[in-house]
């Protein structure tokens, strides 16, 4: 378990700092190479932290004491660090004189050995800049230790001051932290809470379910414009003068509304491959959702269009407008405002209904949470999925309420209005409600 290792590491770091403190308190016999400092370049996006598990540059400096020469240095970082693909720059500063030293760097696990082509003379400040290295992804305080070779003999290097590094995923550190909390332990010891709302699993679920959630949103957001266009088309067909067009619309709308979406999904996902039509799962999901929603939207639009009082058509006609002009400049703009709440409700339904696509292997939210629940034997991922659905639906439900209220207010108007007109608006609204309730 990763977090356990993290805890170990922290303990290790603490122990090492302890060692370091004692070395300060009781200095060792004179060293030939004294550690001056060890730093790492920040690699946090837009921050100044050093994140483990990501490439950075380690800079280490030490002074060669008088009467000594150094031919090789080995730097060792905590377990989990890597020097794979490292490139090293060696600089020696002698007073103001600066010389570039060539050498060979040999990475070995979490340490790297740098052999100099020429010995570093006494009194120089030796600087090693090692790029393309990584600290342990768990993060923590990283002390640079190691050894050096002077006059053919190998000696231990003094530990550097620890370099603060951040765990690779904040999520992981939260999990680590949660593991250590007594209240979490108490919480999880309750059978219900531990099974449905385990904090650690909730946190990990959020990150592992996110792609499924994005896919759900993506499917419904991509499907909806087509659903609206198709819905409008079939709404117009259904109120058309021609009986054949009306019949086509009625069949389309009633078949789609009269059968379960689940069935429609099965027919499309299993039927099309049998006809050797192979469409990407996600794309097919978008198509099925668009077609299904279009039937409901067609009814919403039809009811919306028919809720516009006859007087609006008559006024437009008496100005000489033709049917198309009347529809697009007078009727539909008013319809749009009226149907926003119902369309939003349908959007909410469509978004939730993407869950059915999990049954045919679309990697959406339900699919992810089902997998995670299977792996962990815990229900918490489903609860996390529920929270993901609510993040989208609750604000939309709120929007529906606000828009409905605004419409009610603007229909009431602010100035005195003739009584009969209000009746007309009311009965139109009632009529529309009736029509959409029937959906």
């Amino acid at each position, binding site marked *: 378990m990763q977090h356990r290792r993290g805890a170990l590491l922290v303990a290790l770091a603490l122990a090492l700092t302890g060692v370091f403190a004692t070395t300060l308190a009781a200095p060792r016999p004179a060293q030939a190479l004294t550690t001056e400092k060890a730093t790492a370049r920040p690699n946090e996006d837009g921050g100044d932290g050093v994140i483990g598990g990501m490439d950075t540059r380690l800079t280490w400096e030490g002074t060669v004491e008088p009467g000594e020469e150094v031919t090789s240095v080995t730097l060792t970082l905590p377990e989990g660090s890597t020097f794979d693909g490292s490139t090293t720059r060696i600089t020696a500063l002698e007073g103001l004189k600066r010389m570039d030293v060539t050498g060979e760097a040999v990475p070995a696990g979490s340490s790297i050995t740098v052999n100099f082509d020429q010995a570093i003379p006494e009194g120089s400040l030796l600087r090693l800049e090692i790029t393309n290295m990584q600290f342990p992804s768990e993060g923590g305080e990283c002390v640079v230790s190691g050894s050096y070779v002077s006059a053919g003999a190998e000696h231990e290097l003094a530990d550097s001051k620890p370099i603060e590094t951040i765990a690779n995923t904040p999520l992981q550190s939260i999990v680590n932290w949660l593991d250590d909390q007594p209240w979490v332990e108490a919480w999880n010891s309750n059978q219900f809470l531990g099974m449905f709302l385990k904090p650690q699993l909730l946190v990990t679920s959020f990150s592992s379910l996110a792609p499924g959630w994005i896919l759900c949103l993506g499917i419904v957001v991509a499907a909806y414009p087509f659903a609206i266009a198709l819905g409008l088309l079939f709404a117009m067909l259904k109120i058309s003068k021609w009986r054949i067009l009306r019949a086509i619309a009625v069949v389309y709308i009633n078949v789609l509304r009269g059968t379960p979406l689940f069935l429609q999904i099965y027919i499309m996902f299993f039927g099309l491959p049998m006809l050797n039509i192979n469409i990407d799962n996600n794309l097919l999901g978008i198509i099925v959702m668009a077609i299904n929603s279009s039937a409901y939207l067609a009814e919403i639009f039809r009811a919306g269009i028919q809720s516009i009082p006859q007087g609006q058509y008559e006024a437009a006609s*008496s100005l000489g407008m033709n049917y198309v002009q009347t529809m697009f400049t007078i009727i539909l703009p008013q319809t749009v405002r009226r149907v926003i709440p119902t369309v939003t409700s349908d959007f909410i339904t469509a978004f939730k209904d993407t869950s059915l696509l999990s049954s045919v292997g679309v990697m959406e939210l339900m699919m992810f949470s089902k997998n995670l629940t299977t792996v962990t034997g815990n229900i918490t991922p489903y609860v996390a999925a529920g929270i993901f659905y609510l993040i989208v639906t609750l604000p939309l439900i709120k929007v529906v309420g606000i828009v409905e209220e605004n419409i009610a207010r603007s229909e009431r108007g602010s100035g005195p209005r003739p009584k009969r007109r209000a009746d007309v608006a009311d009965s139109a609204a009632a009529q529309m409600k009736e029509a959409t309730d029937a959906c």
Partner: protein
Amino acid sequence: MPAKLRHRAPVIEVPPALPADEAASIAYEADQGLTSHHFTPGEHPIVRIEHLNKSFDDTLVLKDVNLNVWPGEVVVVLGPSGSGKSTMLRCINLLETPSAGHILIEDDEITNKSAAEVNKLRRDVGMVFQQFNLFPHLTAKENVMIGQTKVLKKDKAEAEAEALKQLAAVGLADRADFKPAQLSGGQQQRVAIARAVAMHPNVLLFDEPTSALDPELVRGVLDVMRDLAENSGMTMIVVTHEMGFARDVADRVVFMEDGVVVEQGLPEKVFDHPENPRTAEFLGSIN
């Protein structure tokens, strides 16, 4: 004609429309003394209604209506509820399809026209409705502009200038950017009048323009109509229950009952010395 009838409706036989010149000279003779509007021999009526019949299913609601309206004349139509006043008005711009008979505007028969021709006809016949029927999603100014831009294909600036002019004429220059819901009923009806007038129609029809208004708002709308009648030379056919308006502004008053034009004539004649007992009774009950 019979082809246009609903199969259950009784088939009504009417003679064909009269030739224009003959109709004009007959109208010239017949309307002498019926209207205070001045018309000349050789002038043609702008609206000619001959043997107009209209039935809804089995009920005949207009029975052989005949009426001429001269260019610039103001005709007020009176009558009890259900007498067919609105139906007659709505036949003139084909919001209702006549069952039989002829309506001619500038000697052009409007019945049996194609949809495109009907739209063209309607831009020349304006209508003001009892329920205003403003477009609620558009501002007052946009309400007045939309017919000009969409139907007359005027450019936006020109339509806007015209809209502001017409709104000013109905005393609503300062309400140009208000939505209908922000206007009083009287203001809405004045916008509706501006919207109709901005199309510069040949004939303007009013169907009880003040009936849906609170009493204190009626005056403003009537003043606008009076101004139109007296100063614009617009031909107006007005269905109203405002007797004061009819008496002061009308060139001719037409009294309808039960789908029939019972009496017509000068306002003072019809109001003070009605020939028909039903007219007398109606006016008595109103006054």
